[in-house]
């Protein structure tokens, strides 16, 4: 029983980790993409559609990643190419992604697919204590590896240093001869791919069907996670598990017929998000950990 609970918590955390890690890289480069929810939905619907049509989960995952990147490219065109306001453009992208994914997915509602298999043989799951951790799929394990690789990239490589520098002061980075826009384009596309992968995980693993708006606010939680993690990759994992736990406790509570009104329970993850953000801003640490050029468009004067 407790193993099953842990397993669901872990699986709920996976999409949060993926999306937040991508967004962390984007924000480290100095861009805030509030369109996470929209990109995830585009990833989800594409992944479902392609898996349903081809029967291949691999093609489905790939489609999710690509459509996430394409959606991010639209954002990049406005925000980097035309230097539009990042907050407004990001919000528009969420609305756009929600609407378009609903339109594309209208015909797929009610269909089912078989989700991702577990990586290890089924009976590994019966091992006491660690069983839940051995019953996950390849994407879940990859997500931890990706977080580690992102950390190595950001803090151990020169390219990562350049990316962080672009987020701290794009004018300085420019004056040193780095192409700020190129760096940010790469970051935005990477963020899109991660959001697409995160979205793809939902219909391929978590609930093997498509329904409109199935991300149900996970994009926003992932955004909050980046702040929660104060822009440090490893902390995203703790944060995601915390939010995953709250989400699942709420479901478990409803199933057990707790006397608390279900509306209040289902608002728990969002309340927790707000609470965490408030606590962080009271501590005042977020302001200093944040890349100082976040949301400021870079315009080269030549």
């Amino acid at each position, binding site marked *: 029983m407790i193993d099953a609970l842990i397993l669901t918590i872990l699986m709920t955390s996976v999409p949060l980790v993926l999306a937040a890690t991508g967004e962390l890289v984007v924000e480290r480069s100095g861009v805030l993409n509030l369109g996470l929810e929209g990109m995830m939905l585009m990833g989800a619907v594409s992944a479902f559609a392609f898996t349903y049509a081809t029967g291949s989960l691999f093609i489905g995952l790939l489609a999710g990643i690509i459509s996430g990147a394409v959606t991010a490219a639209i954002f990049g065109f406005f925000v980097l190419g035309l230097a539009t306001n990042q907050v407004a453009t990001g919000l528009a992208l969420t609305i756009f992604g929600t609407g378009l994914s609903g339109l594309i997915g209208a015909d797929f509602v009610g269909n089912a697919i078989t989700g991702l298999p577990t990586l290890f043989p089924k009976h590994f799951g019966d091992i006491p204590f660690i069983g839940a951790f051995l019953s996950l799929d390849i994407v879940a394990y990859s997500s931890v590896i990706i977080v580690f690789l992102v950390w190595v990239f950001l803090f151990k490589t020169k390219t990562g240093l350049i990316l962080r*520098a672009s987020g*701290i*002061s794009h004018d300085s980075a*420019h004056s*040193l*001869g780095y192409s700020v826009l190129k760096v940010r384009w790469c970051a935005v596309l990477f963020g899109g791919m991660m959001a697409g992968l995160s979205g793809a995980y939902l219909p391929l693993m978590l609930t093997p069907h498509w329904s409109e708006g199935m991300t149900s606010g996970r994009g926003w939680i992932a955004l909050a996670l980046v702040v929660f993690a104060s822009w440090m990759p490893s902390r995203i994992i703790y944060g995601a598990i915390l939010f995953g736990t709250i989400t699942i406790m709420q479901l478990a509570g409803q199933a057990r017929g707790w006397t608390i009104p279900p509306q209040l329970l289902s608002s728990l993850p969002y309340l927790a998000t707000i609470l965490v953000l408030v606590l962080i801003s009271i501590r005042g640490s977020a302001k200093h950990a944040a890349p100082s050029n976040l949301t400021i468009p870079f315009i080269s004067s030549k």
Partner: protein
Amino acid sequence: MIKCSFIEIELFKKKITKSMKPHSALLESRDISKSFGSFIANDKINFNILEGEIHGLLGENGAGKSTFVKMVYGLLEPTMGALFWNGNPIKIRGPQEARNFGIGMVFQHFSLFPTLTVIENIELALSDTQALPELRKTIIEKSQEFGISVDPDTYIRDLSVGEQQRVEILRCLLQNPKLLIMDEPTSVLTPQESEQLFVILNKLAATGCSVLFISHKLKEVKEITQRATILRRGRVVDTVTSSEVSTEQLAKMMVGSDPQHVKPKIGTKSNDILVQISGLCRPADTPFSTPLLDINLDVKAGEIVGIAGIAGNGQSELMEALTGEWRSRDSIKVLDVLGVDIRDYSPHKRRQMGIGFLPEERNGHSAVMGMTLTENTLLTNHNNPEVQKHSIIQNDNLEKLTSNIIHDYDVRTPLQNPLASSLSGGNLQKFVVGREIIKKPSVFFVAQPTWGVDIGATKFIRNALIDLANEGCGIIVISQDLEELFELADSISVLFRGKLSERKPVKELNSQKIGLLMGGEDGASLAKEHS
């Protein structure tokens, strides 16, 4: 016939000068021009920099110095003309290319990353990737060679401005530059730190590296450079040998006319104490702000009190306490102005009492850039009954008041009632100063009244402040500019890390003494040194 011989003489002269100069030109600018739209920032700039020479580029704000060096560093493209490097025409398409040629640049506003460490900042500037331990070794070697002490693992934000500049220089030195461009390097330094900088630059020049030293300070250009090129309104006035000209001559070339002098103060000091501050403490709001520690100060009628210090030692915190943007009953023992306890008073209420103030930052703090001058006048004059009657703005009176300010304070405007953002820095500063002074405040708090303002406007503003004091107003001037404080103040006190040094009459001070206080030497050690 005559013409011919004239040319011959000219050729002969050239030959002589050529043979007399042992060095060849490292960088030469031929007819470099740059225009932004219809505005010509640089108009046919011609001069050269020799190998191993420290060459000054002198000019007022807006003379086109920064535009020129940005072209040399590849940040801007010239509209016309060409640069020659060792006699070969070159095109510099970006900072990376400039660095490949061996051109390094230290910016006026540093191009450092505050939340990265020293070593990370240096690594970013190097084109080849070096292993970190190796890089750390090279940094320490180089810093010892030039006498620049710096810990590679500290964060930039934890360093003083002078130290930050040394990191910038070190960063350039690691690329073994042939030409180092320094953009207004001393504007943020104490006199002592400037001396240290000059030692480094001379060492560097001795190794054969040329330095292009940009400044609007005449004395230091004369002190540090071999030759200097003077720019005025985007044009080269002349290139001179620095030791052969006086600072007066340089000033005349830079401004284009004899600079106006600041009038002397007639000491009409009375014994009425207008401002009394004691036990003003202010805790730091953020890790980056400076706490104020037990500030005590009083200002008499007709007196100008100068507060010196390097930026970031509590100036903005003190100014906010004076204006009422920050106020506290518990942290301040006494804050009396004109005999009234104003600890709880909002900026608005303080203005109503006849206190004028002018914060340091004109863009967005003392003026709203997106508003017209008339609207900006209204912002500090809305409690004037002529301007506002029964909550209705009296536009005619407001416009009259604005045009009075524009006229009396010699504000040059492009249009009838322009946006604040369309005025040059100097003109906008004259406007905001005028807007406060025209109200005839009894007490005036002003920060950096002539920051980034050209010589003409500077003298004008200082004269206006002196006139005001002569009429009996008590003034506190917070400034980084020592020359300004010596011209204006009756007595000076130095703010260092939130502590105010003992106040001394100007006659007992010189820039050397203040410089020591600005660097944190206390009065006791000063006295020791003296005896």
